[in-house]
């Protein structure tokens, strides 16, 4: 049977791969197409959110088999950035559909081999802690969790230990016990949905109370499992803690010699949690904020995507680097570990003068400077 032969009257039994309410939501209006980075790259419907949902439906109805090459290619080619969600008037929860899709396709031997060591490393809290031993992050082994706890992240504590140190420097009340594992986002996005949710729950037990995270991607996954009440992204939490700056004070700030600073949104922070104003407001307090045309679009890091599909990831990154170069930025700020690595590598490759800095580092640096004056 082909897709064309399926009518409501003769529809075969659904296979139960997807939650019916999620899959039924899409009415194929196509409003998502221009928001999708892979559709922008290819111009091909098959590589758009609407096209992928049609592939999911074909899979669900048995029109296409599990080993269909296009189904597998598109499940992998999708960045999972969820830029299609805020523009969807019908309210399709594409991110959840993608998790279910990969959970079905990638469980077992079809998982991309490059992602396996990453999942293995992040899977056990002990291994995550061991990774962090070599780097000087903010965590203290003896520390007990407090009412507000800083999440160290799995790869962030290894790659960017300064982020947690600076976060703690800014807010001494943050408790940072090292007895915390990975949030599980990597698992959830790579075909191990249940394990991903379990890791999030375990992290919620290890860090009772509020969890502050310096990575937007982790924040969105954690909040999805533990709720937005308990999980706060750093710029969101910091802005609420500091409060708004009165207009008069803002006007008094020196204008000359300020850094020109852009921002790379974290996709899941923006599209999943709706947080994008907060980091912009914080940046505008320490420098001249420059909104890049593609600030809200995925940089191509997309969790493990940069590792699994380096070529496509670089193609997605290209226009961001063009814009950073054109705007001649001093700093491009990031709010997510994956974007940090992606932009750092890109900026280095292009030999740009722009520095890539996490927003916590940016704010801590500014405070140091102010104290020195």
């Amino acid at each position, binding site marked *: 049977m*082909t*897709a*064309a032969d*399926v009518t*409501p009257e003769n529809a075969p039994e659904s296979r139960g791969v997807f939650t019916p309410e999620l899959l*039924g*939501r*899409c*009415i*194929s*209006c*196509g*409003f998502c*197409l*221009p928001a999708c980075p892979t559709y922008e790259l290819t*111009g*091909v*419907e*098959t590589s758009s959110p*609407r*096209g992928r949902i*049609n*592939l999911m439906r*074909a899979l669900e109805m048995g*029109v*296409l088999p599990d080993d*269909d*090459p*296009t*189904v597998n*290619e*598109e499940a992998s080619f999708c960045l999972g950035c969820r830029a299609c969600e805020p523009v*969807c*008037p*019908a*309210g399709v929860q594409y991110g959840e559909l993608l998790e279910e899709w990969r959970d079905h396709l990638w469980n077992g031997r079809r998982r991309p081999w490059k992602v396996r060591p990453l999942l293995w490393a992040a899977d056990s809290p002990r291994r995550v802690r061991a990774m962090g031993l070599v780097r000087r992050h903010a965590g203290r082994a003896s520390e007990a969790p407090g009412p507000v706890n800083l999440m160290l992240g799995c790869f962030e504590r290894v790659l960017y230990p300064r982020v947690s140190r600076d976060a703690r420097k800014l807010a001494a009340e943050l408790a940072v016990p090292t007895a915390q594992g990975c949030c599980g986002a990597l698992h959830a996005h790579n075909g191990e949905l249940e394990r991903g949710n379990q890791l999030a729950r375990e992290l919620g037990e290890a860090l009772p109370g509020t969890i502050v995270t310096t990575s937007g991607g982790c924040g969105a996954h954690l909040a999805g499992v533990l709720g937005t009440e308990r999980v706060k992204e750093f710029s969101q939490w910091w802005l609420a803690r500091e409060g708004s700056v009165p207009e008069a004070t803002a006007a008094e700030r020196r204008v000359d010699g300020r850094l020109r600073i852009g921002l790379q949104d974290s996709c899941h922070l923006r599209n999943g949690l709706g947080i994008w104003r907060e980091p912009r407001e914080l940046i505008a307090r320490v420098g001249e904020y420059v909104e890049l045309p593609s600030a809200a679009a995925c940089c191509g890091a997309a969790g493990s995507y940069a590792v699994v599909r380096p070529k496509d990831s670089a193609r997605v990154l290209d226009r961001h680097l063009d814009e950073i170069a054109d705007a001649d930025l001093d700093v491009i700020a990031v709010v997510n570990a994956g974007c940090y690595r992606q932009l750092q590598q890109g900026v280095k490759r292009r030999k740009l003068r722009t520095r890539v800095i996490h927003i916590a580092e940016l704010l801590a640096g500014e405070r140091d400077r102010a104290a020195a004056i």
Partner: protein
Amino acid sequence: MAATATLTGLRARLDEIVGRGHVRTDEGALVTFSTDATPLERGRPDAVVFPASTEEVAGVLRFANERGVPVVPRGSGTNLSAGTVPHRGGIVLVLTRMNRVKEVSDAELVAVCEPGVRTIELAQAAAAKGLLFPPDPGSQTTATVGGNVAECAGGLRALKYGVTRDYVLGVQAVLPTGEIIRSGGRLVKDVAGYDLRRLLCGSEGTLAVITEVTLRLVPAPEASGYGMAYFPDLAAAARAVSRVLASGVLPVTLEFLDQVCIGAVEDYAQIGLDTSAGALLIFGQDGNPVVIERDLERMAQACTSEGATSVRIAESPEAASEVLHARRAALPALSRLEPLTLLEDATVPRSRIAEMVDFIQEVAQRHQLKIGTFGHAGDGNLHPTAVLDAADPDAVQRARAAFDEIFARAIELDGTITGEHGIGIAKLRYLERQLGADHVALLRRIKAAFDPNGILNPGKLGS
């Protein structure tokens, strides 16, 4: 579906014409090009082709014509009458690679572009030179100019500025037999030959494949202003529309939504709409600020005298654009209520809007359907949308019966079965009722003159 024998060598020949990387025949890709934005209609193509030039389009058509393979032209696939569904198989010809804006001239007030340019991109290119391309269909961020011309798309500004047809100065097109023709051009006055550019506009991809369009632009208005009025019911809003139009004002926008639509749109956009109101009328004017103020005032008065419960003038362009954005999203937002929505666009003369609105509500009740109605009130273009419960086995049948009655009533009121969405597959069976047998026979003769072998978008308009 074309016979397998006909398709032998299809892939190889298409590869030669457009290049290997621009043909898709994998089952997954075929699935994703089986549908457009129309619910329930689908058909599997045999190949999907992405040409990059007029010559490549001509090559594909010549080959398809020789072999008798159906060809369905497609832009972004936002069609709402299944006009881009390949229900007889064959080739889907996707024109999105032809996406250059070739020229925007403020001296001549024209734009020249390829069919795959998105409508919003053309509008932005015009705006950058202080010009306006007025047609702005709800799907303008996704839809393409080629698709808009082929469907004669309308939009929210049609009342004052007209529809796509009013802006097409010239087209280059490839006939189904492979010849390349031009009709019209940059001239405002040009009566050499039949007005084929207008015939092709709204021909729904059944006569020729448009590969370049020359469009008329107008100077961008100095300013624009918008207001909103809430009414106890849609009929009251409809009466206000008639009163506005009788008050000597030609507004740029007059859009309304009933209570069902207000609720769905608010759920999506969260901009503080009053979901308890029976209807919302959005009115707008553009041009000189003094005229805008005067016209908004007049329209507000017209609303008040027809029983508006509250009238508000938007304080900023941003606030207005939020409301307009929300209005554009009305159709997809309705699917928040139920995933299956059947939309129509029956259109009646302005003076009959209230009658039509009453009739739609009566029909909905009689067929036990939830019908949300929104639309371009100023040009009588209504979008009654049946929101169907998927678990209700004969809901689709009841909705079809209801729309049968709505179409019949629209024709009685000197209206049309479709204002802007097109005939496609979905409404072909109603066409003769509106046009009569002689007229439909003439359409078929025109179709045959362009497309003797019936390969271009067969089974739709002109078939």
